[in-house]
């Protein structure tokens, strides 16, 4: 029997990377492709030929790397949004937005998520704390942008989009707050929406529109659930796209001061 010579791991990997399948997946310039060299050209291609990275320009101002300029706050807000989307989708598998008298499925589902769902408690905690953190980072991001004067021409409109995104973030956080359907959620939302009830002229209409009734009830839950998992994220993603696109169009990172 002829002695079988096994390829070393490096050789095996190289052989896999030579295949048509591999080369069709990783476009030229990918660091996973064979023959990536640490040259200016391949560094540029690595950014351009990747669906995620091509949000970024190929080159940027050196000072933009300085942590004390951006504190990574915008990027972290986006990262938290992704994290909240992923954990949120997981929670959606185990949650029904139903709170009719006598059933309160929403609350029962919450208890099940905490006790019997695989990693349910951790995922819920991540979602909750991540959401609070996101409100925080978005606010801080706004402060950073203001203090660096980054809202000045040509970035005025991107600042306006950013204010909208802050508003949407608050909306997402607030609508999500009701979903556990416990005493904390319902009464916090009752107090919160009563603030809107003080609006002049349209107080009643505004409140009715928000609550789907005169008090926080099952209709409110369904309404806020749809807003929370679908409507608001949809709008947010649209404005987020505009926000990112405008950063590039307006000349990348602002500054240096």
């Amino acid at each position, binding site marked *: 029997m002829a002695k079988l010579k096994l390829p070393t791991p490096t050789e095996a990997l190289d052989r896999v990377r030579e295949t048509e399948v591999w080369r069709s997946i990783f476009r030229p310039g990918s660091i996973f492709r064979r023959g990536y060299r640490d040259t200016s050209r391949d*560094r540029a291609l*690595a*950014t351009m030929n990747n669906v995620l*990275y091509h949000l970024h320009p190929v*080159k*940027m*101002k050196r000072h933009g*790397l300085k*942590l004390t300029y951006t504190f*990574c706050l915008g990027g*972290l807000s986006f*990262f*938290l949004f992704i*994290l909240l989307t992923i954990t949120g989708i997981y929670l959606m598998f185990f949650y029904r937005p139903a709170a009719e008298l006598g059933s*309160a499925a929403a609350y029962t589902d919450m208890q099940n998520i*905490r006790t019997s769902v695989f990693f349910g*408690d*951790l995922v819920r*905690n*991540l*979602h*909750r*704390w991540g959401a*609070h*953190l996101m*409100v925080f980072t978005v606010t801080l991001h*706004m402060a950073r942008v*203001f*203090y660096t*004067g*980054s*809202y*000045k*021409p040509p*970035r*005025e409109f991107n*600042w*306006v989009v950013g204010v909208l995104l802050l*508003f949407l973030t608050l909306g997402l*956080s*607030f609508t999500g*707050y009701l979903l*556990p*359907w*416990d*005493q*904390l959620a319902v*009464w916090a939302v009752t*107090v*919160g929406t009563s*603030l809107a*009830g*003080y*609006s*002049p002229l349209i107080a009643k209409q505004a409140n009715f529109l928000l609550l789907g009734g005169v008090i*926080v*009830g099952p209709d409110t839950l369904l309404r806020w659930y749809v807003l929370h998992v679908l409507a608001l994220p949809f709008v947010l993603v649209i404005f987020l796209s505009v926000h990112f696109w405008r950063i590039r169009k307006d000349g990348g990172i*602002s*500054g240096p*001061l």
Partner: protein
Amino acid sequence: MARDDTALDQETFDRVLAEELGKGTDRRVAEGRARAAALRAARAKSGEGPAATPAPAPAAGDGGAPEPAAAPAAVAAPAAVGATAPAAAAPASVAAATLTAPERQAPAPTGNVPEPKKGAPEKHRLLALVPPEGIQRVEREQGDRINVWPHLLIEEFVAMMIVLAALTIFATFVNAPLRELANPNLTPNPSKAPWYFLGLQELLRYFHPMVAGVLFAPTLVLLALAVAPYVDRNPSTKPGDRKIAITLFTMLLMFGAVLTIIGSFFRGTGYNWVWPWAQGVFFEL
């Protein structure tokens, strides 16, 4: 075929360039015109002149309505025709075809889908000339620039991993609150809004609801923030030049933060004032 591979007639190029520059044409435009003229000259020399210069003759026999040769129309046409006006200074031998071009006659639109010409080659040339006035000259300083990959992407990745790790550790040890089932008949004491609205709730203690509720806080603050870039006409981004803007914004931020902290930690049963170190904290996230 790459631009630089094209054979050019150097003599024509130099002459046309000199003439165009003499007329005060912008250098880039002049080079373009000289290049176009030199290209045609080179082709004429090598004997493929007629083929490379599409005949600008009117569409014979069609008898369509005459159409003035408007500049944009000519521009969209193939190279030789498009260069009609700019190439006026080119030598007669080269520019003859274009100089003597009559006004273009286009057949009236018939609405029929055009049939492919019999025996037409499979390949076609795509060529466009950009009118000089359509060229935007973008001048930007190169500056001190670095590659996004790997420098920025690695920084972002590390920042994300740190936040993810911290959040996961926090979420492992600190449970999100879940109280008893909602009961519309039993109001908890105190009942507070989520923390980001507590500043607003606190404000309601001091002002008429109409002022604090909708007129003041959300509308005014959001509107003020949104119009800030249009109100602040100061072009400088240096902190030293922006004392007013920075002061105002810091005041707004501090105002919101103080109200939120008071609403969160200094309000207890009945939403009355408490000292958190004495009576405890009435706050839930």
